């Protein structure tokens, strides 16, 4: 994975995460194109890794945006990110090999419009709003594109709207059995929308640490990959889907264990079946 998550005391600057996340997710999404080149489906899992890279970046963006006192707005940030992103991803998918690049550009435009509306029409007047919404829309687009490529083996629109079903022994093309026609894109939308906001929403508070939050972001990404890998059994061949599933489960297990370690490190105390520790001064 192209995003390193070990951080020192000060944490990684946001711009560095932005570059790693953007480049990482585009490169990883393009690696799924190896499927088209080699006429196989073994590289589908790179789409999921692209989503993980994008989610780590998106989590840091949400942290920056929501540090302006948007406590209850954290889940909404995830929703607007994916709402803008899914449109951009679908527009991008129609352009064949240019899909990731076009998705990024379209998402940036949608994000900018949403940001201008939020700041100047709704008058939220948050300095980082426009930049953050652009970033979030791109993150949403890359996540949807990545997970769609993982489930369908390709980010090509025509392949995402045609599935195959077996009817009376004949294999026929059908819209209903495709990634988009079967509304699997709706599942991806919700998976990514919750994953993108959960890490900061779960870790917010005075003791929030960047490495723990970003580790949780990676965990959410790998966790989202698990059901996507299972759904991909319906679309791609057995062996590629098994590869996706194994990579998701291993990645999830590692990041989950690491996250629990980091929580143990940051917690005030780690108790099992102990009574309430009343503070010394009394409540």
């Amino acid at each position, binding site marked *: 994975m192209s995003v390193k998550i070990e951080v020192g005391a000060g944490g990684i600057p946001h711009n560095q995460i932005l570059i790693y996340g953007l480049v990482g997710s585009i490169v990883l999404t393009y690696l799924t194109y190896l499927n088209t080149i080699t006429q196989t489906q073994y590289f589908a899992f790179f789409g999921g890794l692209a989503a993980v890279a994008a989610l780590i970046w998106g989590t840091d963006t949400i942290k920056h945006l929501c540090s302006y006192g948007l406590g209850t707005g954290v889940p909404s940030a995830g929703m607007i990110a994916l709402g803008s992103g899914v449109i951009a991803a679908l527009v991008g998918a129609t352009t064949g090999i240019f899909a990731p690049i076009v998705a990024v550009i379209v998402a940036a435009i949608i994000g900018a419009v949403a940001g201008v509306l939020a700041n100047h029409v709704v008058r939220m007047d948050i300095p980082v709003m426009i930049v953050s919404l652009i970033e979030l829309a791109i993150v949403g687009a890359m996540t949807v594109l990545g997970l769609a490529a993982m489930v369908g083996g390709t980010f090509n629109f025509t392949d995402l709207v045609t599935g195959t079903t077996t009817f009376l022994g004949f294999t026929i093309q059908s819209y209903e059995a495709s990634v988009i026609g079967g*509304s699997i894109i709706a599942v991806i939308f*919700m998976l990514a929308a919750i994953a993108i906001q959960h890490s900061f929403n*779960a870790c917010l508070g005075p003791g929030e640490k960047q490495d723990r939050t970003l580790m949780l972001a990676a965990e959410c990404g790998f966790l989202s990959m698990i059901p996507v890998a*299972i759904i991909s*059994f319906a679309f791609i061949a057995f062996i590629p889907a098994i590869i996706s599933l194994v990579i998701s489960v291993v990645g999830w297990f590692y990041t*989950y264990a690491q996250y629990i370690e980091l929580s143990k490190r940051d917690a005030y105390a780690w*108790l099992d079946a102990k009574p309430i520790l009343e503070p010394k001064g009394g409540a």
Partner: protein
Amino acid sequence: MEEIVFGIGITALAGALATVAGAAEDTESDIGSQGDPNSQVQLAPQMGYIHRIFNKAIAGEPPAYGLWVALGAGLAWAFMAMHINPILAIVLGSALAVFVQGVYATTAYLGRTASLAKFGQPVYIDILKSMTTVTMAHAFIAIFATVAMCHLMISALGHPFPLPLLGLVWGIALGAAGSATGNPFYGKERQYQEQKFGAGVPISASGNIVRYAEAGQRNSLDNGFFSAKLGGPASGVCFGLIVFFELWRTVVFEPFAAGWGAVVIGVVVILVFAVIDRYIEVWARKTFGPYTVPEEASS
């Protein structure tokens, strides 16, 4: 005629499933202090009230249940596409969705609690072990019932949406019903038993949630008992009625005026319920409330 009778039967069955789903959903979210009880559980340690209440802030209930049900429906759809029997597919899909829900619940509790280290709130691992499983069990019932209901709508009533999309729509509706109907029982009353009924939460009482039980210390399982008694059934009735009336008006009145009959009946149902709700609210305030000026309620 026979078609309409069959439709009404499916409608009743879907309504019954929805009632079960609503009851389980509210109990699940209250055990996890999700939704609007969450703010006070989150605030309590900062005000010096260390507690043993589960705090799984995943998102609001509507988005969270939108995900669980859409995920359960999506997985069930995929299993059915692999030619697995629908009932087995729905069970497997719901089970996997519950796995995701359980993982989210644990990470939310660990994250929130670890970030409150400054205020001396420890992580109680036994809470994680005992309460996550209970919320997962309730979530399974809620997800399974809702996905089964969506499958009924498609296979028996011929709804044109694919299963995952219908799951998303009804999941959000389920979360919204539980959040709006069930949470006030727990969030505004059970957490604040020291306050007078209907007093709201004044700033001075913020975070002063009930932390000790009749004997020993309260944890979220006690809130589960309470929710199962009042908030859960209320949410169940709410979601059940939503589903029942939604399907009933479509099944019975869609043939009238090219579909507009169902729309008109929908508006009429909303108006009738608005009148009933207003009547009950005014009656309850007159009968039980110590206050009469509405402004006092919103503190």
